[in-house]
């Protein structure tokens, strides 16, 4: 137990080092930094605008009204912002690491390789969209007039965490394919594009699409589940348990897959 605590402390202190290095790096180009922050917030506003155009012609999307969708879009933005700040910038660099042979030095470091390649870089810009998303979320919930209770809030945090884990696990798994397809530059865009649709209401999926995007590639669970919790929608116990199971499964499976895939690494010539 004492060893585990020491290990956790070691990794936390390492991550703090990564963070402080990144903050210095991020603010060295201030105007570029500001422009990126503004663009990030604009993207969120644009997502809201997209649905507002639909709602200017329709009352609901398969039972999801404007405030329900606004809740969903805001929650998705929170997940996206956290992912794009702490995990996305690392997964994006995977292929460059392999192409340049950077794993040569990573492999000899006294550190868990998955931790290192997943946490080394941090981008602060996406985080600035979080206060806007939180305000929008509170606005949507208050306009809806059915405030969530303590149980719903607890369920929200749980499923939010699950959503984040699923997103990371799927992203990490796709990027581990880089060891097999070094020259496939579209891998990162593929996982990013796929997961960007997590902010669409689950009611758009029917028949095969519903099964596929809920159970096989559970994009629909990432933001919909926490949104449904806050909106006091009835969440099926089976779906919730499945999302917990999938989160654990994808974490373990993607790690195993990564450890297997790295055996194909052949330094810079791979």
């Amino acid at each position, binding site marked *: 137990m004492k060893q585990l605590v020491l290990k956790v402390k070691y990794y936390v202190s390492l991550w703090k080092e990564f963070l402080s290095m990144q903050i210095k790096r991020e603010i060295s*180009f201030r*105007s*570029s*930094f*500001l*422009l*990126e922050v*503004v*663009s*990030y917030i*604009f*993207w969120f506003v*644009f997502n809201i605008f*997209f649905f507002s*155009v*639909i709602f200017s*012609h*329709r009352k609901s*999307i*398969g039972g999801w009204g404007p405030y329900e969708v606004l809740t969903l879009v805001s929650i998705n933005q929170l997940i996206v912002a956290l992912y794009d700040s702490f995990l996305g910038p690392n997964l994006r660099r995977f292929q460059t690491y392999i192409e340049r042979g950077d794993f040569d030095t990573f492999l000899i470091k006294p550190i868990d390789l998955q931790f290192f390649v997943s946490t080394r870089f941090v981008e602060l810009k996406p985080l600035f969209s979080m206060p806007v998303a939180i305000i929008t979320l509170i606005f949507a919930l208050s306009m809806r007039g059915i405030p969530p209770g303590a149980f719903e809030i607890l369920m929200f945090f749980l499923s939010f965490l699950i959503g984040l884990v699923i997103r990371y696990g799927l992203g990490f798994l796709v990027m581990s394919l880089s060891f097999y*397809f070094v*020259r*496939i*530059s*579209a*891998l990162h*865009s*593929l996982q990013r*594009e*796929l997961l960007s*649709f997590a902010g*669409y209401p689950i*009611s*758009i*999926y*029917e028949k095969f*699409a519903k099964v596929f995007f809920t159970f096989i590639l559970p994009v629909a669970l990432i933001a919909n589940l926490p949104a449904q919790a806050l909106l006091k929608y009835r969440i099926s116990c089976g779906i919730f348990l499945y999302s917990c199971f999938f989160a654990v499964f994808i974490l373990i499976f993607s790690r195993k897959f990564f450890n297997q895939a790295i055996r194909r690494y052949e330094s810079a010539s791979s």
Partner: protein
Amino acid sequence: MKKLNKYCQVVINTIAESSEFRFNHLLSFLVIALPLIFMVLLWRKVLGENGQIGAFDLKSIITYYFLVVLFQDISYPGPFWEIIDHIRDGGLNVFLSKPISYPGYILALKLGINIPYLFQSALILVALGMVAGFSRYLILPIDLFHFLFSLLSFLLAVLCGFSLSFIFSALTFWLEEGRGVEVFLEFLISLSSGLVLPVSLYPKALKTFCNILPFRYVLNFPIELYLGVVKGRELITGLTIQILWVLLAFLVLRFIWKSGLKKYEAVGA
């Protein structure tokens, strides 16, 4: 004619070279085809079989996104990493000492990459449409007149998109860190080109804003023309504006390129 031959040779070589990376193409295509699947699912739910939003019904909105996916890669403005790398690492020197126009070379390179990709994408999209069952929603142009004008407009869109991409990439001559500008332009272009939503569905003020910018004419305009959403006087005005944008973008490209070369320091800008 002889001058043109060398650029045609670049196109042919690039087509041959890019066919070596078919799997990469296939995967890149999936990246842009995925939104189509989600858009079909969303709009089917929103409109049902008989619904209407603005000038669009289910068939025309799905055809709209189908064409967006198909033409996005060839006409949509984005950074040319070749130009950025050549400027940053001094690789431009090789081209400056050759009897070749660098912008012409980049255009030939782009066409060589995008032409086979366009045909490949069309085939995959149709196959995907048949499997996923949305090919029945795809519609043909309303008449031959609109079809011919939309073809002309697509051609102009490719030229305009190329010039804009070249201009943005050549800004590397002046920008030390261009990520902020790149991200902001990415947002602005997505908004005003109709990539996510047809511009004609925007509120009036935003539509006017998009009409002022060139980006609508690289994607949204030719597609709305094909679908007959743009017709009559709007068609003539739109095409005239598009031609003017192509000319203006080309002039700006020449100016930026010449000014940039003066700033270029051969070891990287």
